[in-house]
């Protein structure tokens, strides 16, 4: 991965560090959601608006490292910029490449990650459909909290899983690629 960032002083170039980031992120998020599903008294005291605000802030905060890492490594969402093929069709010369624009290999990696995430979301959605049958023994309000937590998890998965898959699966850069940026000045 080029332009490799560090998080809390830890380089995100080695795959094991990136996998640790994914594991820690999801562990924290699931624990965070579970707290809101169980609804201890202090969470209840926040009131409905306060709870929604804390949930939103928590999700944004805990997903931030993953978002930041994938943004920096160019796996950004599909933008409105025309591809160089489209520019060529218009008979124009493509301008200098935006360093944050993914090239065709990066797009292929990202699209494959979205496809894998889609399959997980499909299975999770079906399990979500079955969930009420397993929650019927709970009181109405507890079951409602759990359903809300499971729906929130669906939102988090839909949002972050493609990025997590990319961060998890992207192999360590070969030695020759890691040395390349140092040679840029000589090129």
């Amino acid at each position, binding site marked *: 991965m*080029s332009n490799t960032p560090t998080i809390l002083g830890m380089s995100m170039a080695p795959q094991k560090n990136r996998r640790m980031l994914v594991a820690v992120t999801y562990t924290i998020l699931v624990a965070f959601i579970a707290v809101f599903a169980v609804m201890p008294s202090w969470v209840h005291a926040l009131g409905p608006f306060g709870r929604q605000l804390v949930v939103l802030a928590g999700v944004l905060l805990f997903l931030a490292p993953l978002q930041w890492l994938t943004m920096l490594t160019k796996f950004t969402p599909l933008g409105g910029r025309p591809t160089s093929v489209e520019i060529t069709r218009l008979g124009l010369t493509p301008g200098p*490449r935006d360093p944050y624009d993914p090239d065709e*290999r990066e797009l292929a990696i990202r699209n494959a990650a979205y496809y894998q995430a889609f399959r997980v979301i499909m299975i999770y959605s079906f399990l979500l459909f079955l969930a009420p049958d397993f929650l019927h023994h709970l009181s109405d309000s507890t079951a409602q909290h759990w359903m809300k937590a499971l729906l929130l998890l669906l939102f988090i998965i839909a949002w972050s899983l493609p990025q997590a898959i990319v961060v998890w699966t992207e192999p360590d850069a070969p030695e020759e*690629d890691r040395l*390349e940026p140092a040679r840029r000045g000589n090129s």
Partner: protein
Amino acid sequence: MELGSNSDARNGDRLYNRIAVLRAERGLSRSALANALQVNYQTIGYIERGDFKPSLELAFRISEYFGLPIEAIFSRTPFRPLSEEVYGNHNAPPSGDSK
């Protein structure tokens, strides 16, 4: 990650190329070539190693950049060394010996 092109490469349906040789001949770094082609420098490495098959459009851009026909750069079968193609294999036994 199982990309179509990568899994193809693993299945033996590999696309061979001479980009590394052409780059070395011209004293080009991967970054310089990547900047000229407007791709990530790592993508050049992936293509050189046969881990990623470029699109037809990128293959033509590479071909235009080096000023060579596309079949001189990419092949579905392994290339003979360029030196051997230019000068022939002088160490090869005479054709009469091989019979």
